[in-house]
């Protein structure tokens, strides 16, 4: 009896794999192979992209990029984006979602409003943002002018190389703009996800709590947030991935030299930006393999953050 059953199960399994085969092949060709290839390439010394020649396996590429000051900036900027923009946008999105969920009228209207950044082009919106921060006729300075604050040269890099003080002031201003834009850009999707999660919570929990005289704050803390936790984790992980891939917003705000006009240190470069530049330089021996090494570092960082997150929140996430 049991044997027969097992045999039948095996037959089922075999046909299941057969049906899955096309998908598995596509996955292998377009996902598995590139990942493995990148991994291998990152260890090839003096790898020439056009001929495929290389001078043995080793850690040369990793050593090279870690010695490169631009790579250091790329790491720092990427981590900045992750550690500032993820918490900021998540807290903002969650707050807005809780408020939106509490109102009945105009909910759809506000949701559309908050969804707009999601359907605008990252580059185009970035240009508009950069323009808003324009020193001469940008909206931000105009508004600051109304309250009596002198115009700020927001995106300006001329003559900063000589003085560390001027350099870091320019850097701080650019970071600020980058943060504001990144949060603005990423908030819509998070709101949509949070709203979905909130509306999935059974209304009877709230009725029960209301009859028991639970305060709004306690309802949020003891009922809403715990029941929303799977959504929060999902939002967090997708945010981490998006943050570590930050690239387009930097290009659109600061141009392809990753900095304010006049800066030639690639002040605002990100990890993906660093990879892009290295890949663009594919004729130089070892360039593609350095890009691969940077990519592996990126993967490592994302994995690290995700694992830490899982460990920290394991007990507090409630899955149904």
């Amino acid at each position, binding site marked *: 009896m049991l044997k027969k059953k097992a045999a039948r199960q095996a037959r089922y399994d075999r046909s299941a794999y057969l049906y899955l085969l096309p998908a598995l092949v596509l996955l292998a060709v377009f996902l598995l192979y590139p990942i493995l290839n990148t991994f291998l390439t990152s260890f090839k010394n003096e790898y020439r992209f056009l001929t495929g020649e290389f001078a043995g396996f080793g850690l040369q590429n990793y050593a090279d990029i870690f010695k490169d000051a631009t790579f250091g900036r790329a790491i720092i900027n990427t981590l900045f984006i992750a550690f500032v923009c993820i918490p900021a946008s998540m807290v903002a999105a969650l707050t807005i979602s809780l408020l939106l969920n509490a109102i009945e009228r105009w909910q759809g209207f506000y949701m559309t409003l908050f969804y707009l950044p999601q359907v605008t082009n990252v580059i185009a919106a970035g240009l508009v943002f950069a323009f808003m921060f324009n020193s001469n006729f940008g909206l931000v300075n105009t508004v600051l002018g109304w309250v009596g604050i002198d115009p700020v040269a927001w995106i300006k890099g001329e003559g900063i190389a000589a003085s560390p003080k001027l350099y870091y002031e320019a850097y701080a201003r650019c970071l600020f703009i980058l943060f504001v834009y990144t949060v603005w850009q990423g908030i819509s999707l998070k709101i949509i996800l949070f709203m979905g999660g909130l509306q999935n919570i059974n209304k009877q929990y709230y009725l029960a709590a209301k009859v*028991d005289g639970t305060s709004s704050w306690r309802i949020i803390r003891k009922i809403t947030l715990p*029941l929303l936790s799977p959504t929060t984790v999902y939002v967090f992980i997708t945010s981490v991935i998006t943050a570590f891939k930050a690239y387009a917003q930097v290009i659109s705000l600061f141009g392809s030299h990753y900095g304010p006009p006049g800066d030639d240190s690639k002040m605002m470069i990100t990890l993906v930006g660093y990879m892009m530049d290295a890949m663009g330089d594919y004729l130089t021996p070892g360039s593609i393999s350095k890009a691969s090494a940077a990519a592996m570092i990126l993967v490592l960082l994302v994995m690290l953050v995700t694992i830490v997150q899982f460990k920290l929140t394991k007990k507090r996430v409630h899955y149904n």
Partner: protein
Amino acid sequence: MQVRLEQVTKTFAGSKNTQATAVKELDVTIASGKLVGLLGPSGCGKSTTLFMIAGIHDVSEGHIYFGDHDVTALPSDKRGVGIVFQNYALYPHLTVWDNIAFPLLNAKEMKKRLKQRFAELSPPMANFKAYIQRLVEEAAKLVELTAYLDRKPAELSGGQQQRVAIARAIVKNPSILLLDEPLSNLDARLRVQTRDEIKRIQKQTGITTVFVTHDQDEALSICDEVIILKDGVLQQQGPPQEVYDHPANQFVAEFLGSPQINLVGGSIKANKLYLGNEEWFALPESLSDQPVNIGVRYENIRPDRENRKQAFEATVTSIARTGGTSTVQVRLADGQPMRLHRDSDDVLQEGDRVRLYARPRTVYIFNAEGEKILQC
């Protein structure tokens, strides 16, 4: 505490300015300390009525009194009601202990009341936390869940979840307990067991309890009184047996009782009742000539062995035996079917002609509008 609804109406605003009246001019009094069933088919306004008592829904018109106190405008958390929702609404991320304790650790108001009770304890207890612990344990003990306090709701059976919900509702010592279809999510065997459990808990605590159900059997078996609604309108209120034996109208007669009551077309002519076309018996009161529906319950129809005048003839068309009783279907002279219960060892055979009989006071006569016009 006594609950009184006075001309209570609830209208919901529908889409496009339409209005739906869920409950209409409801006048009922729920006696203090009683277990009262709110009974009616799905959509008749039972939950709406319950939610108005709880203060979850506002009342559109009319008043609700708890004792002498008009609570119509009182927010739900000030009414001191405990409610069990149809799907329990247990917090899935909290343990049984935390679920039961939830209402106690809530608002300032509750804490104040608890602190006061704590202060008046005799003998006094050492600390407030221990008092909370004791209240939770007492509630858990009442519903026999002491062994499960550390579990999450998902790790409990449906019946146990149900009892957690009851414990959570009574732990704050409510003056009124409201149960919305508490048994509808349980399987048949558990349902009988749990309803007896609810009866026991209610008797033990003496809390005035409103028990919503669409299952007449449930209501009749455990309630001290039933209130029957149809389309938001009160049909009848009274003790179960009373309502069963003296239904106010055809709807109540049909709704109560399983199997459903026999309804046979007939008429009144010259103060005589005709069952189909056959004269049955003379009416003790004078009523105008009209077509009527005649209702007789299965168990009230018996074979006539004494040649009574008030018997009628019928032909046995089928016999379905189930355990100790069998259901006999017969056909009247004009072809209308009727059913009755007999012992399974009865000698009736299909095709037999039988004389049947029902005592006049078990016969309900309804007019074309479904109003009861006579029960002798």
